[in-house]
């Protein structure tokens, strides 16, 4: 039987690996594909359209228009034949009741009569899914409709593969962020990064070494993949200064070194990076920092007073002979420090008044996790246009006894 070849054998194993590689969530929705299946129903005047994946002997639908997507046995579908034939032309079934290959399928008993399907391939050319339309009456697509069908299938294929690659990129980028909060003595450190697209130009990093916390938060010009690549490179360059930073080397020196090493790349990419790099002595509470064109660093004193900290230095990648200077500030018991990217300003009614607005968010939070949770909630509600990144360093206050 032709069909069983698709649910077993070497070809099927390769296809199954490719399907797994798509990383599609059976429970999630896929709005980018839904747009295409909805449009297919309209454009081709069919009651049903779907993107179908055959997955370990079952068929399920990342997107379906005109019917409730469930899951079924792979061998009970038209699509298993479409994939088995692996043709570059659509498989067209005009009248399934009269076609011995399909007349016994449960869906045909349930009323499906006409079918057109085309395999969708991943970037290696392996067929991973099908794009298909169904009708309840016997019919054939007109040449124009058939052309539209092939266009829609090509679009679905692109969405399927592109969204997969971006999901993988997104996972990799997330894995470059610190994996857990820091809790050392009186200090709590944690952050969050919410890219506006699948990947973004914001990054943050922190680590504790030799009693010194080294924190950095950068924002690469622009958004998306290009910015993410520059961001990853900058993070690595900053990481390489960590041992110097914990040994007490002036941050003006280390940041200038990073800027020099990044300059060629930034010039070629026609990009720049705003950055806050900060080293905190966990014993003394003395923080040293460089503000490279970020300006978004706020200290909230234990009594709730917001103090804006900023330097006068430019972003990395602007002038070839630029240099950066270290500024010092003391964090006392109960003080809270936040660094963030300018995407946060989009969340405010009056961005110019940000120290007051952000200051009250920080002061009103019970603790660091609840501060970040509130930030994440606000960011998700507003659907921001820019990447949003926040890192917070809280020094615990003395518990009042009463």
């Amino acid at each position, binding site marked *: 039987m032709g069909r069983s070849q698709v649910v077993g054998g070497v070809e099927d194993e390769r296809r199954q690996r490719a399907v797994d590689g798509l990383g599609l969530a059976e429970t999630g929705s896929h709005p980018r594909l839904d747009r295409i299946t909805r449009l297919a129903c309209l454009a081709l005047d069919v009651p049903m359209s779907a993107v179908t994946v055959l997955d370990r002997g079952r068929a399920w639908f990342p997107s379906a228009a005109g019917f409730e997507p469930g899951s079924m046995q792979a061998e009970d579908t038209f699509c298993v034949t479409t994939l088995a034939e692996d043709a570059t032309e659509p498989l067209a079934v005009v009248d399934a009741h009269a076609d011995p290959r399909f007349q016994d399928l449960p869906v045909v008993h349930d009323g499906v009569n006409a079918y057109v399907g085309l395999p969708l391939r991943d970037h290696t050319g392996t067929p991973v899914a099908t794009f298909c339309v169904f009708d309840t009456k016997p019919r054939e697509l007109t040449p124009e409709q058939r052309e539209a069908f092939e266009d829609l299938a090509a679009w679905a294929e692109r969405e399927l593969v592109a969204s997969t690659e971006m999901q993988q990129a997104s996972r990799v980028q997330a894995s470059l962020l610190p994996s857990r909060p820091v809790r050392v003595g009186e200090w709590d450190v944690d952050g969050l990064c919410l890219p506006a697209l699948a990947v973004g130009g914001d990054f943050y990093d922190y680590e504790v070494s030799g009693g010194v916390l080294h924190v950095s938060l950068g924002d690469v010009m622009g958004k998306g993949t290009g910015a993410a690549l520059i961001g990853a490179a900058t993070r690595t360059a900053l990481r390489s200064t960590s041992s110097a930073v914990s040994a007490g080397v002036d941050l003006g020196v280390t940041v200038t070194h990073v800027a020099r090493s990044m300059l060629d790349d930034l010039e070629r990419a*026609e990009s720049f990076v705003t950055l806050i790099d900060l080293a905190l002595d966990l014993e003394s509470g003395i923080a040293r920092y460089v503000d*490279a*064109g970020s300006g978004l660093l706020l200290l909230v004193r234990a009594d709730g007073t917001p103090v804006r900290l900023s330097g006068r230095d*430019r972003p990395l990648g602007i*002038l070839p002979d630029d240099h950066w200077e270290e500024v010092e500030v003391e964090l006392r018991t109960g003080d809270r420090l936040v660094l963030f990217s300018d995407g946060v300003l989009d969340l405010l009614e009056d961005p110019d008044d940000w120290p007051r607005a952000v200051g009250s968010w920080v002061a009103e939070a019970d603790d660091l996790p609840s501060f970040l949770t509130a930030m994440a909630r606000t960011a998700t509600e507003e659907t921001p246009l820019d990447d949003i990144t926040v890192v917070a360093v809280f020094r615990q206050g003395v518990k009042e006894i009463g």
Partner: protein
Amino acid sequence: MELDVSTRDDGIAVVVPRGRLNMVSARQLKETLSDLVAGGSARIVVDLGETTFLDSSGLGALIGGLKAARQAGGDLRVARPTPAVVSVFELTNLDRVLRARESVETAFDA
């Protein structure tokens, strides 16, 4: 965003971006500026009097234009920035590189 480009009698090019200077429109501004420099107009005034919004990509286009103009022996100056744009220049500490001039006419006087 709309973009007007003109060249004055003294050879200084005047570029007027109107509206929001974001990721999409920044590309257009960047191309316009690099075309001007490539075409021999390395003295450029960008009139920001009607630019209502500027993001980091817009800032990147201005900095890119500034670098290109200076490399060609000229300069890029910004005139009449709106408060929204001034606050971006100040926040990024680029207000000394992109020093705001009071008028388009006098932008190259000093």
